[in-house]
């Protein structure tokens, strides 16, 4: 569904009116197109220590960015990166103010702010408090940025996935990821042979792929080189076949909530693949009702499709040899899983449950040939699921994020394809929000 308001305020007349009456002015976000430069302009890097590490400059340059060592009057920046991994006392935080404050106004539209920090580790109270402070800085800065620019925080425990994370966060692939922290840990994270085809040679399966976010995920995985199996209910088979034929994939009728689903899936994988590299648990349903009025079938079906199916299929895969080494599982959560939502106790249960599921499964997946499992929590994304919302609620919900607009299925898909790529091997057990820094749940 097209966002009429967004189109309107980006027309000359609409823009003038919106400015005069103080209406929100959502920007047209910069999204990834193959062949586009990674950023709209050059990059300036700063550091708490005053000296930017050569290894960081090398990684940012390798990502295709133009890193400037010196600044000249009137420079306009595609991205501002600040390495705050060395912060240890609250006084150290001043360096961040100093680096950004004079330069934020010269950030180009859809520019990127990235702060590198470290996760609190319990070793020292002052250090931990200071590290945690970065979170508040980035979240607040993200709300301050305009014209489609975003700010995110990379907590670097290990540099294994830093290069691949930089490529994702600087590019248009992260258009709708804003105000989020992400831990980059140790892991096996080889660079792909071809960065334009990071999933070449991989076999992927996406559940609930007949439409919406699932269909977009399947298309992006295929674009990135994977051979994709798209799965959905038999009833959705007509649309599913079209998705498969559009992306050159294979269609599988599978009800993920059926008790026989794990066994059916394993049998299929055994017969028609050499094993699975990527699994995306995307199938999901809503049956919204206030808890006071919720019927057992509304409760049970949501739990079965959105949470139990993921647990059962993961257990079956881990118990088989069909998930290949350095496998990647990505689960769909939702910002509702963080913030809750009126009328969604059942849905909220499952989406919070998924956050717990990936956190607790990380070790088991790491032990399975250095595999990973992560979740993506979309905010308000324009699909048939959200089209069911009443018009006024939907219009308001669309604006309730720092980017003042709904995300597109492709935004969720880009994050998933990155988490599914070899280079993201250092990210495990985490939930990444793709929500435009949503102010409430979705």
């Amino acid at each position: 569904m097209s966002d009429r308001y967004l189109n309107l305020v980006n027309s000359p007349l609409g823009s003038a009116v919106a400015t005069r009456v103080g209406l929100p002015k959502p920007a047209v976000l910069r999204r990834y197109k193959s062949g586009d430069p990674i950023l709209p302009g050059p990059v300036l890097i700063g550091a708490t220590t005053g000296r930017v590490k050569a290894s960081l400059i090398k990684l940012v340059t390798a990502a295709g960015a133009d890193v400037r060592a010196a600044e000249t009057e009137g420079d306009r920046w595609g991205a501002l990166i600040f390495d705050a991994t060395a912060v240890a006392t609250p006084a150290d935080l001043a360096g961040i103010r100093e680096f950004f404050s004079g330069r934020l106004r010269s950030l180009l539209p859809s520019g990127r702010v990235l702060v590198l920090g470290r996760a609190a580790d319990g070793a020292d109270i002052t250090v931990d408090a200071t590290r945690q402070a970065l979170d508040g800085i980035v979240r607040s800065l993200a709300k301050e940025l305009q014209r489609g620019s975003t700010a995110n925080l990379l907590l670097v425990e290990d540099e294994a996935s830093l290069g691949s994370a930089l490529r994702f966060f600087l590019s248009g692939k992260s258009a709708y990821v804003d105000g989020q922290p992400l831990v980059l840990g140790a892991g096996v994270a080889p660079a792909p042979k071809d960065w334009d085809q990071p999933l070449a040679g991989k076999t992927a399966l996406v559940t609930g792929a007949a439409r919406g976010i699932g269909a977009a995920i399947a298309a992006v995985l295929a674009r990135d080189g994977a051979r994709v199996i798209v799965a959905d209910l038999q009833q959705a088979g007509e649309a599913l076949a079209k998705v498969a034929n559009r992306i050159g994939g294979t269609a599988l009728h599978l009800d993920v909530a059926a008790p026989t689903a794990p066994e059916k899936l394993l049998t299929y994988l055994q017969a028609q693949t050499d094993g699975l590299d990527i699994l995306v648990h995307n199938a999901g349903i809503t049956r919204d009702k206030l808890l006071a009025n919720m019927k057992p079938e509304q409760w049970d079906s949501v739990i079965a499709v959105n949470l139990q199916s993921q647990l059962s299929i993961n257990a079956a895969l881990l118990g088989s040899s069909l998930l290949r080494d350095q496998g990647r599982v990505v689960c769909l959560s939702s910002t509702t899983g963080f913030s809750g939502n009126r009328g969604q106790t059942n849905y909220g249960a499952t989406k919070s449950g998924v956050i717990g599921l990936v956190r607790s499964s990380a070790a088991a997946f790491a032990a399975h040939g250095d595999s990973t499992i992560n979740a993506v929590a979309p905010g308000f994304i324009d699909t048939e699921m959200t089209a069911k919302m009443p018009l006024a609620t939907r219009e308001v919900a669309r604006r309730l994020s720092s980017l003042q607009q709904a995300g597109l299925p492709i935004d969720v898909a880009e994050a998933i394809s990155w988490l599914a790529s070899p280079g993201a091997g250092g990210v495990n057990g985490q939930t990444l929000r793709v929500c435009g820094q949503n102010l409430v749940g979705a």
Partner: protein
Amino acid sequence: MEKKVTVKTRRAAIVGGNRIPFARSNGKYSHASNQDMLTAAIDGLVARFGLQGEQVGEVAAGAVLKHSRDFNLTRESVLGSTLAPTTPAYDVQQACGTGLETAILVANKIALGQIDSAIAGGVDTTSDAPIAVNEGLREVLLDVNRAKSVPDRLKALTGLRPNQLVPTIPQNSEPRTGLSMGEHQAITTQEWGISREAQDELAAASHRHLAAAYDRGFFDDLVTPFLGLTRDQNLRPDTTVEKLSKLAPVFGTRLPGGVEGATMTAANSTPLTDGASVVLLASDEWAAEHKLPVLAHFVDGETAAVDYVHGDRKADGLLMAPVYAVPRLLARNGLTLQDFDFYEIHEAFASTVLTTLKAWEDAEFCKQYLGLDAPLGSIDRAKLNVNGSSLAAGHPFAATGGRIVASLAKMIHENGGGRGLISICAAGGQGVVAILEA
């Protein structure tokens, strides 16, 4: 040295199939053409097996009721599909035997090494059926077209008569007898003494079995929904013999015995249906290279025909040709009728199946007409049409063969191996039969 070409043969594998749910005539597919439905069936198969852009050895399919614009129906469907446009295709037409005949044709080519992969299938619509201009009108129009001058044309047009403007709608009747298929089968039913109860029981079982097969997900990888239909529209899961016994007979009411003696109803006869089905066949090597399964192999096929126009009223019934084809097929393969794990006998009418079985049990008939010393004998009825057949699913003429071949291959595969017999009767007194094995 003179070079000699040696011909090696191999067995064709059945990799899988796809069909769209079958719709009742003038139901969900009333505005879908044969080409729309066949293309959808092919595209569903392509999606299931990841064949986008693939050049398949050949596609053979056909339709019984065909518009003249569909002279190249299968090739046009291929061009509209996601298969490689360089995939050759041709149409086949052998009445209700079309679907199975296409499978035999391409299996033979695979066996001879002429091709490595093929799609066989069929489609029919009784909703979007071709309407022909009246024969008189057609002749006048052709005369007009041939006339050279305007006065000659006008003269030719004076040949027009008002009754010639009434179009001819295709009929389900035999050109040489003027009898509909149902009326023909009613004669056979009466000659063989097939009871109403037995027919109703077979019809109820067909619905029960088909519903159960859907419920356990048997069709999950055989059927792709089309135009909002997800299951066969004719399926009545709650049908009982009790309910069926209340229906009035529709065929055979003018035979000796009258309405009282007539046994064939709308429920124990197949309804007019729209739909399409396709099957993917290949060599074992092709299947392995594409990492695709082999469900079963195509063993052999046979076709027979009876002289229903001049022949014996009992022994040469219009739909009795499979009765003659099967013993020939068994003899050639050194098998008995009991050497099978599954029997798929197309339910054109419940009584067709029952007559076929009865004839094979009849020592006198087997001796006199099949030239056998002993009757073929009876079969274990628990192995007959175990996942339902045409009475429940419906019967879009040319699409039935593909439905049966794909389903039977999957049954054999699920069973961990075995052998299945397919028997399909066709208009014109023909019958097409085949054996699958794994």
